[in-house]
């Protein structure tokens, strides 16, 4: 071979080595707004696991807007990510975006919320919100001695989990004829909105003895309103397992919540993504249910950032 050719080949080989080692594969992590510590814990968990496995990450929020989610998908597809970890913005509305990524050769691994079709995402690691809601409702009913008037705070209507949790609550509570639903209203997952809603619920129904809430941020808002009204006798139960509610439980405020193991779930999704990218399979079924755990005074001390130690 002529010397010039040898030099050019050597440069080509060295160039290739640089290209493959300088830029790690990227995983995109897309969730609802991290203003809610639950979603922040998901994103943090996924990011930590991905980086531990040698990936770069892009962390984005769709703000529960399916259109924005679609745009984010377009942009990560264009930038050539290898996989997407997603807590989606709508069980039906998200299917098209996930399909588009699949068509572009990018697998999606869903956490927390499911979508209503299979065969599009590779994994759906879904919190068993229904089972969790049943646990919360059983505790609620038990604390109230199986009787009394209660109020329910509903989550954001566009979030499937709002309906799933409410259904789960009623699956249990409606089996008790002496439990009476006095009023049911949405506070859209918002702490400040729940404060106002709780205030007006109390004024209209001063004889309620319990409040069951679709999530922890609303439970915190409700509890603040109850405290302000001197009604700390009212039993409040939330859902998610946040540090705020944990602290309230420990100081005798809110009585219980239900933990969704958000951090662990996100990590498991990344582990499955990695296995899929390396071997072409996750080794498990697409739809995987992660059970929720009741948190009350007995185990609140073990709860930290959406994980129970031990």
């Amino acid at each position, binding site marked *: 071979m002529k010397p010039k050719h040898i030099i050019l080949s050597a440069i080509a080989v060295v160039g290739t080595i640089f290209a493959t080692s300088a830029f790690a594969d990227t995983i995109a992590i897309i969730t609802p707004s991290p203003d809610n510590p639950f979603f922040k814990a998901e994103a943090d968990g996924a990011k930590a696991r991905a980086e531990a496995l040698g990936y770069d990450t892009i962390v984005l929020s769709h703000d529960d807007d399916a259109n924005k989610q679609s745009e984010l998908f377009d942009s990560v597809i264009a930038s050539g990510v290898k996989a997407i970890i997603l807590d989606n913005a709508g069980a039906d509305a998200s299917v098209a975006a996930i399909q588009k990524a699949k068509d572009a050769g990018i697998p999606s691994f869903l956490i927390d919320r499911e979508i209503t079709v*299979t065969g*599009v995402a590779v994994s759906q690691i879904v919190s068993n919100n229904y089972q969790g809601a049943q646990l919360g409702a*059983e505790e609620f009913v038990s604390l109230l001695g199986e009787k009394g008037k209660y109020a329910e705070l509903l989550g954001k209507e566009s979030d499937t989990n709002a309906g799933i949790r409410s*259904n789960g609550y009623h699956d249990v509570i409606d089996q008790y*004829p002496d439990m009476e639903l006095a009023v049911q209203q949405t506070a859209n997952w918002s702490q400040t909105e729940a404060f106002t809603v709780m205030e007006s619920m109390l004024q209209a129904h001063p004889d309620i003895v319990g409040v069951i809430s679709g999530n922890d941020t609303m439970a915190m808002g409700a509890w603040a309103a109850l405290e302000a009204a001197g009604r700390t006798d009212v039993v409040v139960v939330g859902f998610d397992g946040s540090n705020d509610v944990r602290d309230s439980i420990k100081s005798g405020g809110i009585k219980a919540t239900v933990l969704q193991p958000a951090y662990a779930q996100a990590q498991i999704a990344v582990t499955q993504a990695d296995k899929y990218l390396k071997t072409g399979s996750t080794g498990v079924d697409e739809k995987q249910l992660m*059970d929720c755990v009741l948190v009350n005074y007995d185990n609140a001390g073990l709860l930290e950032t959406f994980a129970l130690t031990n």
Partner: protein
Amino acid sequence: MREAMRQSLKFFVVLVAIIALSACKIVIEDGSTGKTDAGVSGDNDRIAALIDKTFDAQLFPEIKTKAQDFETFRKAIAADIDKAGQRFGHRGAGQGAAWNFSIKGTGTIVDGKLDSRARTFSVDMDDDANADLLIQLGPVVKGTALRDFASFYNFNDFRDQIEFAKLGRALNDRATASIEVDGSGYIGNQIEFVGVLTLSSSTTRILVTPITLQVAP
């Protein structure tokens, strides 16, 4: 002649239309690109049909044949719950899901909670006067051990966790529908049962959902 033909033709056309319509299958599209079976409104019917098909023919026999004698079960889970689960248990649907077991035995009723919608008997199985387990009598039943013990109910076959949960509830209702516990005076009576339970660890309280239950008078 023409009029008769026209009438026959009309009749013939109507006849064809009737035959064509009765051969039609009405498919309810729920709009998603995956499963085309009916949505939430069809859940109860589908679940009821599934239970009719599987409860007596598959679930009952599976629970009965795999039922472990209580002492054997207790020793096994105290030694190593995962090994016990692999030998004769079944995991529920999902990551880190708890083990479900089937057990059988005879014990003494030492206490009863019958003034609740979630009625239970506390049963002493080893003659030391302390309760070893609780048996659920309904009508309110906690947990989904019946669904999760079965080897043939798979979450992937269901539209979503709501439909899957409805199965769990319907199974519980079916199993406890025939349990009649009236009046009082059960303390000290012998109770014989076969039932399932869910355990996340070897120290979890044993809460049994029975499929057969007999209280000696």
